[in-house]
Structures are given as structure tokens and as C-alpha cells.
């Protein structure tokens, strides 16, 4: 019962913050909404027994990515007329597309997976803890993990090449 209430509160917070992100003209307000959405998502991860992911969500997203984004927003020092409003045509196209997609996709989804087909499994000891997730990564997914470090290196070099005035 308490889980139900917490879920609905977090879900409302998440969707509300998401709508805040896409409706504000000032990108700064969007960024703040984004941080709220990440906090709500971290709570949902906790409910889904993924504590490590919840912590990393706050650390990496709210602490890293969003700080970087806010930093760049302040760096560019936008005037009010540069903010960029809604696309009138875009809104209609979006609405139509999403309506069609949700109806079609929803029907297909319901046919393939009838409601209540999924049940949560009984969890082993320490599910989602830093120890067990680390074991999983380094025992079974070592190669993708190493490739990821290469990707991050490429991103760092690429960002410097792109943003530096004179190399």
C-alpha cells in the first residue's frame, strides 16, 4: 500500500518535471526541472531494487551532466530573444505522431503481452547492490566495459577539438 502511494507520487513528480522541461522558454528552468526528474527517477530505481543505479543517477546525471549543461547555459549568456519558442507546425506533427503511435503500439502491446502476465521474480540476496552489480560487470561484461572507456576517451578528445577556438 505504501509502495503504491510512493510510486504515484514519484510518477507524478517525474511526469510533471518532464513537462516542465519541454514547456519552459528559459533553458535554466528546464534544467531545474530536469534535476527534479532525475531525483524522481532515482526514487523509482530504489523502488525497483536498484540502489546502485539510484545513487549513480544522482551522482552522474544531477551532479555531472546537468551541472555541465547549466554551466554552458550560463556561459553563453543568452538574450531573451534567442531563447527559441515552440514550433507551431512541430506541435501538431508531434501530437498526431504520438497519438497514432500510442494507439497502434498500445494495441499491439496488449495483444502480445496480456495484462498481468509479468510477475516480479523472487530476488536473490544483495540484488542490485554495488557488490553484485560490480561482479556482474567484471565477470560477464568486461569487454563492453572496456569499449565504454574508449568511447569516453573519444568523447573527451572530440569535445575539446570541437569547442576549442584554436588547437
Amino acid at each position, binding site marked *: 500500500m505504501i509502495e503504491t502511494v510512493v510510486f504515484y507520487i514519484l510518477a507524478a513528480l517525474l511526469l510533471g518535471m518532464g513537462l516542465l522541461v519541454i514547456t519552459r522558454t528559459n533553458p535554466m528552468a528546464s534544467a531545474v526541472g530536469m534535476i527534479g526528474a532525475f531525483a524522481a527517477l532515482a526514487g523509482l530505481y530504489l523502488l525497483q531494487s536498484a540502489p546502485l543505479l539510484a545513487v549513480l543517477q544522482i551522482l552522474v546525471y544531477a551532479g555531472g551532466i546537468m551541472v555541465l549543461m547549466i554551466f554552458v547555459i550560463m556561459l553563453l549568456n543568452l538574450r531573451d530573444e534567442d531563447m*527559441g519558442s515552440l514550433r507551431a507546425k512541430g506541435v501538431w506533427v508531434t501530437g498526431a505522431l504520438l497519438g497514432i503511435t500510442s494507439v497502434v503500439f498500445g494495441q499491439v502491446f496488449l495483444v502480445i503481452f496480456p495484462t498481468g502476465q509479468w510477475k516480479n521474480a523472487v530476488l536473490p540476496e544483495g540484488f542490485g547492490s554495488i557488490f553484485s*552489480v560490480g561482479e556482474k560487470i567484471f565477470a560477464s561484461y568486461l569487454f563492453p566495459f572496456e569499449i565504454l572507456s574508449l568511447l569516453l576517451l573519444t568523447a573527451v578528445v572530440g569535445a575539446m577539438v570541437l569547442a576549442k577556438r584554436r588547437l
Partner: protein
Amino acid sequence: MDLLMPIGPSHYLVLSALLFIVGTAGVLSRRNLFVVLMSLELMLNAVNLTFVTFSRVNGEMTGQVVALFVVAVAAAEACVGLAIVVALFRLKETVDLDMFKSLKG
């Protein structure tokens, strides 16, 4: 009443689909580069929520590992994306997406 039923995986899947739709709407309907980037992050997070949900359903941590990888890829994407924004702003003095149309035929 259906709403106050115990929370199951379907609730999370529907929530994640709704979040993905919100993100898509942001990408398609906004002209500010920053907001488009943030909506992209919202879409990535919606997918992550699905991964975590199925990881919980199957009692198998692979989904969480993939979600962690997605977080890392999102960090790389934000980093390069913001560098591109800075370079574009230097060139055109604006972040309005409709101003960047040199490649339009």
C-alpha cells in the same frame, strides 16, 4: 479499484512510455538547442527505466548493467553535444535550431 492495485511491472512500463513520449514531444517541438538536448536525455532515461523494470521482473541484473552503460553513453553524448552547441554559438551567435540551415538543399 484498478488504480490502487499493488504496483506491478506494467505500471512502470506505462510510466516509462509516457516519459518517452514527453521526451519525443520536446525534441520535435522545441527550437532551443539546450531543451532539445535535455529532452534527448529524458528519452534515454525512459529507456533506462524499462531496463530496470525488466531486470526486476527476471531477477537478473543484466538490465541494470545495461542501464549503467546507457548512463555512461549519455554522459559522452551530452559532452560532445554541448561542445557542438558552443561551436555553433560561436559561429552564428544563436541557439535557435531553425537558424542552422546551411545544409538544407
